[in-house]
């Protein structure tokens, strides 16, 4: 069985021996990168600078709460506001692989910039097994280029170090629990963020719709969980689909976009089944979304696809 304590001891020692000089860690505040940061801090102490990038595709209130959490862990934090840069780079980009590559490159250029300022030669990342597996390479097909692996540009001016490379999410959570890092129960959120939950044009307006829909989905499910009506799904979110359908609003015809809700059960993200959520809860979410986002959205659908054949995120 996986032994978190042994893993932390070995990995800390390995990083201590390997990382000579300053390093930056790319940290989104999610469980993977935060655990990687905690281990790296243990290994190299003050030589570690934690970089958080606000891409403009974060969830509602996310940047503020992550900032607080990372500071609490005592990480030396560099907070980069890069929304304009990301939106500019993604103008007109809709093909998912293209999108992920643009995002991967943007991240790296920012990290290179910060590393130069901090005189760091190493970039530590919270890459886990599904990231490199699904990114493909060699005999393996590319399912999706994860921004931190397959989305990297060809030339990177930093040495990349990935302490969690062989772990899956459930194992990372065990490490988080062992290290007492409070993120261990946070649901997964992909590095590209809402950019891959808006299918079609990445305008600020569309991203705002996805942000609001995601907030409603999360609030309602977390509330239902608190009231013990459901067990919390492994991951749950909303996606804005670039498809329009006809609705009726106040006796008048309406032509609006669609939101797909997705909630899945999984252990490691490499296979998943859709969550059998009670209709009562789905109903509540649907009503809230179609009312508060009524100007743009008039239909909500629930995704009942397992993985495979689907993937968890839509892109």
């Amino acid at each position, binding site marked *: 069985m996986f032994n978190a304590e042994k893993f932390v001891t070995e990995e800390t020692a390995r990083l201590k021996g390997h990382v000579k000089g300053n390093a930056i860690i790319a940290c989104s505040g999610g469980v993977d990168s935060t655990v990687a940061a905690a281990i790296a801090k243990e290994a190299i102490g003050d030589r570690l600078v934690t970089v958080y990038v606000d891409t403009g595709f974060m969830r509602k209130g996310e940047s503020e709460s992550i900032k607080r959490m990372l500071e609490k862990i005592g990480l030396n934090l560099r907070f980069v506001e890069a929304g304009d840069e990301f939106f500019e780079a993604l103008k007109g980009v809709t093909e998912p692989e293209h999108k992920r590559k643009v995002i991967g490159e943007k991240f790296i250029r920012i990290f290179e910039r910060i590393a130069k300022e901090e005189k760091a030669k190493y970039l530590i990342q919270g890459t886990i097994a599904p990231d490199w597996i699904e990114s493909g390479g*060699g*005999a*393996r097909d590319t399912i999706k280029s994860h921004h931190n692996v397959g989305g990297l540009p060809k030339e990177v001016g930093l040495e990349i170090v990935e302490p969690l490379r062989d772990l899956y999410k459930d194992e990372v959570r065990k490490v988080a629990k062992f290290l007492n890092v409070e993120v261990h129960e946070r649901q997964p959120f992909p590095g590209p963020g809402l950019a891959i939950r808006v299918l079609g044009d990445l305008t600020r307006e569309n991203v705002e719709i996805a942000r609001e829909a995601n907030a409603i989905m999360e609030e309602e499910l977390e509330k239902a969980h608190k009231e013990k009506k459901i067990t919390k799904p492994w991951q749950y979110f909303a996606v804005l689909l670039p498809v329009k359908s006809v609705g009726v609003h106040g006796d008048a015809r309406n032509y609006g976009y669609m939101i797909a809700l997705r909630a899945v059960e999984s252990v490691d993200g*490499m296979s998943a089944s859709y969550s059998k959520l009670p209709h009562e809860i789905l109903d509540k979410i649907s009503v809230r979304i179609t009312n508060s986002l009524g100007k743009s959205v008039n239909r909500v659908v629930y995704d009942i696809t397992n993985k495979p054949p689907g993937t968890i995120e839509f892109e």
Partner: protein
Amino acid sequence: MKNSLKIFVVDNGGQWTHREWRVLRDLGVETKIIPNSVPLQEIDADGLVLSGGAARINWETLNLGKISEYLDEAKFPILGICLGHQFMALHFKGTVSPSATPEFGKMQVDIKSDSPIFKGLPRKFIAWESHNDEIQTLPKGFEITASSQNCRIQAMHHVSKPLYGLQFHPEVEDTEFGEDIFKNFVEICEKHKVRGSKHVQR
């Protein structure tokens, strides 16, 4: 005993190759992932798992790294999964071609005949699938050990050699009794190893 048992995973480019490694590691077996290009003489193992992969084999040509060599000459048990299973059939002169109904995700598997690989399992269980092709004709010397509604040769084994094939994926978390199947394979490798060493002593 188990501490010294070595079962390696041969990587044919599958999405779940690393999961196979993980299940074996969790069972306390010494394991690692090796490319399918490693010559057999360099493989110091007591058993091999042949992973799946995205390759749509040109079903006329027998070419998947050094797997043919392993199947012909290895003295230890081999478990082929998905593409590994299909290639095993092909190598022993069975046929493989695109499935009439490919299976993705959840499927019921029915055990058709007793096999050490299914020891202790119920006759029906849910398994996770992900394949476009399947074995159409069984190679000589093999028998079908499980089927599903859309795929007749869901599992097979050789009647006298320690060769096992599974079309579904026991390494996937969602597959029922997947870990038990791996435990059974570990046991098969263990028994084989003990028998082998006794043989040498004699």
